C-alpha cells in the first residue's frame, strides 16, 4: 500500500463516528434484537391462580416490545421530545418509554382457552444511549445539533441518568463455553483440571473436570456438592459401555490405559444405576422417586447448559453433554502426559468483551423478571378481590424503570458487580474519548495477578500497549487501540450450523437428515 492509501485508511480509523462505535453497535443491537430476545425467552408469566379446585388457570403471554425515542412528561401532563442537553441541565433521565404487548389468558383445563384482555401497555422507561438509533439527535446535522444546544463533536456513547452522564465500562471476561485445561495443586499434589464456563441466557455454570492424584477423573458442577466420578456421570448421560467411553475420550494408548483405570474403579455399570447414584448425591434422604426426578432435573438444568438449544431433542443434548465431558477428560489426560501445555487465560482468544449492549441485556433480563413477579402478584391479588383482570391495571411501570435506572445511576450492576457505570470524565476532550474506549478486567485489583497485568502478545492491534493507569489498577484497566475492530457474536447460530452441516460436519444435533456418527466437537 502506498503512503496515500495508508493515510486514507488511518484517517478513516480516526474519524469521529468510530470513536464510540463499539458502544453504538452493541446498544443498537440490544434495542433491535436483544430486548425482544429477552422477552421471547421469558415468553409467559404464570400465576398460582387455578391451583385451587374449580378455578381455571390464568397466565400472561408476552408479545412484541416496542421502544420510542426519549421524551419527558411534564407536571402539567404534556409530553415532549427530550434532547440530551435538556436532560443534563434539568437533572432528568434521558429515557424512552417501552411498550409491550401482553395478553391475559384463562382456561385450558375444563374450558377452552380464552383471552381475557390483550393490549399493548407501557411497561417502563429505558435509558437511551446518546447517539444511538433511538436517540433524538440521531441523524442531525452539525447546525441542527448546535441549535438544540448539543456539541457537534461530542462522541456520544453514554447514558444520562438524573442529569449525570454515565458510561458503561466494557468488561473483559474469560470466554464462556470453552474448555480451558490447566495445572492446579490439591493437598500438595499436582492435578490437572479442565474448566468450562457454560453460559446460556444469562445463566452461568462452571463445570470442572479434575484428574486427581490417583489418576481418577471427577466432575463438579453447580447444585452438586463435591464432585461426581466421571464414569458415573457419562453413564448417567447415556454413554454406557466401557468400550464406547474409552473410544470417545481418546485413541491414544496411554490415555486408554488411564481410562481403563477409571473404568475399573467405576461402581455403576448402567444408565439407570448411574442416575440412581446421582440421585442419592443430589437429594440424599429423600424418597426414591424424588431422587430420580431431581437427578434428571439437575442433569438437564445445571450441567453444561450451553449445549441446550431450541428445537433439539433432550436425548441428543444429553449424549452431546457426554461427548463434551469426554473432550474435557481428554484435555486433562493430555495435560498430564505433557502432550499439550496448559491453556493461557490471558491469551486474547480466550477473552470476550462485554460492551454496553450486553450489560444492558443482563439488566433488562433481571428487570423483566422483577416486573413479571410483580405482575404475578398483582394478578393474584386482583383475582382474590374478584376484580376484572386487565393488562393495564396489573402492570406497574415504575418497577422496570427503577430496575433499569438505578444500576446505571449507581454502578451497582446485577450479579453484585460494582463500578460498572462511571461518570464520564469531562476533564478534557481526550479524557472523554479515552474513557469511552476503556475496558476493565473483573479481577480484583488488590491481588497481584502478575500475568493478567502483563502486556500479552495477542493484545497487538487490539489494546493500547502503553495506556494503562499506574498503581493498583495497572494492567487491569486497558484502552482500545485506535484500529481495534470488535467482532460480534453470530446472530443466528442455527444458520451457521446448517452451513457447517452442508460442508460435511457430522453430528450436529437438531439438523435434519444427518445421522449422528461422531461427537459434536467444539
Amino acid at each position, binding site marked *: 500500500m502506498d503512503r496515500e492509501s495508508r493515510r486514507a485508511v488511518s484517517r478513516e480509523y480516526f474519524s469521529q463516528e468510530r470513536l464510540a462505535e463499539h458502544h453504538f453497535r452493541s446498544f443498537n443491537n440490544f434495542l433491535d434484537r436483544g430486548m425482544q430476545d429477552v422477552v421471547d425467552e421469558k415468553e409467559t408469566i404464570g400465576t398460582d391462580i387455578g391451583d385451587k379446585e374449580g378455578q381455571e388457570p390464568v397466565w400472561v403471554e408476552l408479545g412484541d416490545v416496542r421502544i420510542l425515542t426519549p421524551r419527558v*412528561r*411534564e*407536571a*402539567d*401532563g*404534556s*409530553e*415532549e421530545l427530550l434532547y440530551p442537553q435538556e436532560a443534563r441541565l434539568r*437533572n432528568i433521565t434521558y429515557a424512552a418509554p417501552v411498550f409491550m404487548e401482553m395478553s391475559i389468558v384463562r382456561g385450558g383445563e375444563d374450558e377452552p382457552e380464552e383471552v381475557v384482555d390483550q393490549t399493548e401497555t*407501557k411497561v*417502563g422507561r429505558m435509558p437511551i444511549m446518546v447517539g444511538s438509533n433511538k436517540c433524538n439527535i440521531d441523524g442531525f446535522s452539525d447546525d441542527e445539533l448546535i441549535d438544540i444546544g448539543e456539541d457537534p463533536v461530542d462522541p456520544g456513547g453514554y447514558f444520562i441518568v*438524573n442529569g449525570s452522564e454515565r458510561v458503561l465500562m466494557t468488561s473483559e471476561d474469560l470466554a464462556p463455553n470453552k474448555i480451558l485445561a490447566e495445572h492446579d495443586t490439591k493437598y500438595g499434589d499436582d492435578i490437572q483440571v479442565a474448566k468450562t464456563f457454560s453460559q446460556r441466557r444469562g445463566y452461568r455454570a462452571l463445570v470442572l473436570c479434575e484428574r486427581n492424584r490417583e489418576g481418577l477423573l471427577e466432575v463438579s458442577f453447580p447444585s452438586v456438592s463435591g464432585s461426581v466420578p466421571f464414569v458415573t456421570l457419562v453413564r448417567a448421560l447415556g454413554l454406557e459401555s466401557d468400550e464406547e467411553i474409552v473410544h470417545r475420550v481418546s485413541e491414544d494408548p496411554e490415555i486408554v490405559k488411564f481410562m481403563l483405570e477409571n473404568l475399573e474403579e467405576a461402581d455403576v455399570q448402567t444408565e439407570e444405576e448411574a442416575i440412581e447414584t446421582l440421585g442419592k448425591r443430589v437429594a440424599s434422604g429423600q424418597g426414591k422417586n424424588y431422587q430420580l426426578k431431581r437427578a434428571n432435573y439437575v442433569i438437564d438444568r445445571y450441567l453444561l447448559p450451553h449445549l441446550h438449544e431450541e428445537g433439539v431433542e433432550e436425548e441428543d443434548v444429553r449424549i452431546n453433554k457426554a461427548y463434551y465431558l469426554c473432550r474435557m477428560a481428554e484435555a486433562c489426560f493430555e495435560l498430564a502426559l505433557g502432550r499439550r501445555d496448559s491453556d493461557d487465560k490471558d491469551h486474547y482468544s480466550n477473552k470476550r468483551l462485554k460492551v454496553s449492549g450486553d450489560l444492558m441485556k443482563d439488566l433488562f433480563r433481571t428487570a423483566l423478571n422483577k416486573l413479571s413477579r410483580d405482575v404475578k402478584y*398483582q394478578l393474584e*391479588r*386482583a383475582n382474590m*378481590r374478584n*376484580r376484572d383482570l386487565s393488562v*393495564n*391495571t396489573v*402492570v*406497574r*411501570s*415504575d418497577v422496570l*424503570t427503577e430496575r433499569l435506572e438505578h444500576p446505571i*445511576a*449507581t*454502578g*451497582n450492576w446485577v450479579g*453484585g458487580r*460494582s*463500578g460498572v*457505570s*462511571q*461518570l464520564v470524565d469531562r476533564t478534557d476532550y481526550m479524557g472523554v474519548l479515552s474513557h469511552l474506549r476503556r475496558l*476493565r478486567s473483573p479481577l480484583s*485489583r488488590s491481588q497481584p495477578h502478575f500475568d493478567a497485568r502483563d502486556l500479552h502478545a495477542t493484545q497487538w492491534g487490539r489494546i493500547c500497549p502503553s495506556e494503562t493507569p499506574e498503581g493498583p*489498577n495497572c494492567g487491569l484497566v486497558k484502552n482500545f487501540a485506535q484500529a481495534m475492530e470488535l467482532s460480534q457474536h453470530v446472530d443466528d447460530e442455527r444458520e451457521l450450523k446448517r452451513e457447517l452441516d452442508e460442508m460435511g460436519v457430522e453430528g450436529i444435533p437438531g439438523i435434519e437428515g444427518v445421522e449422528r456418527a461422531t461427537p459434536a466437537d467444539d
Partner: protein
Amino acid sequence: MSTTRATGCPECDGRLTADGDETVCEGCGLVVSTDRLDRGPEWRSFEDDDRNPARCGAPLTRSRHDRGLSTEIGRSGRGKNRKWSRLRRQHRRTQIRSKRERNQVYGFTEIRRLMGALSLPDRIRDQSCSLFESAQEEDLLRGRSIEGFASAAVYAACRVAGVSRTTQEVLDAAKATADEHRAAYDALNRELGLPVSAAEPAEFVARFASELDLGQAVRRRARDLAEQAVDSGHANGRNPGGVAAGAIYLAARRKDEAVTQAEAADVADVTPVTVRTTYQALRD
C-alpha cells in the same frame, strides 16, 4: 435533585427551590435556609470500590406504609439457606401488624401504580398517600373500596396541586370502578374538606395540546383563550376539559393548524358539541 416548596419567598413571594443543602428563592435568589440535612443516600460512586457507598438507607417517604424504614434480610450471605429463607419469611411477616396496615400497603401500591401509569411527579404521590392515610384515620374506608380510595386520593391530589386530570383519565388507569371512585371521592371531599376549587380549563390545555401535537404558539394562545373563557364567565358550569378543548380548537384555527372538532373532543373525552359551544362563545 430539587423540589419546590409550597410556601413562597418571604421577600418577594417567589417560588422556593431546595437544592442540595440550601433553600433558595427562584425569583430574587434569597437563601431562605441552609444546612438542611440531606436525608438521601449518596449518589456518588467510588469507581470500582466494592463498598456500598450509601451511608444511610433510602430517603424517608410517605408513599410506603412504614415510611421506607423497614429492613430486609439480604441474600448474599452464605450458610444454611433453608434457615435464612425461614428467617426472611418471618421477618417479612412482622412488617405488617394489622389488617389496617395491610390495607394501607395495598392502597399505596395501587397509588404508586397509578403514578407510573399517569406519569405524575413524586410530590403528588406523597400527597395522595397522605390523603389516603388521613382517610383511613377518619375511618372513611369502612364499607367502601380500597381501590376507590386510591384512585380518589390521586384524583384529589392532582386537583389540589393544580395539575388536574379528568375523572375518566384516572379511571382508565385505575382498578376502581366509576361508582367506587365517586363514593370515595365524595367521602374524602365531605369529611376531610379538601381545598379544591373548580378545575381551571387552562390546566388541561398543555396536556391536550401535546396529545394533538400542536406548536408552542397555539398552546399560548389556547391558554389565554381558556383564561378569557373563565373571566367572561363562560366556563361557569361547563366541563373544564371541554372548555380547554374548545379553546385549543379556536387557537389552532386562528394559527392555521389542522385540528378537527372531533379530534379536540376526543382528547378531552367530551362530545364535539361541547367543543363547538365553547368555540362559538369564544369566537364572538
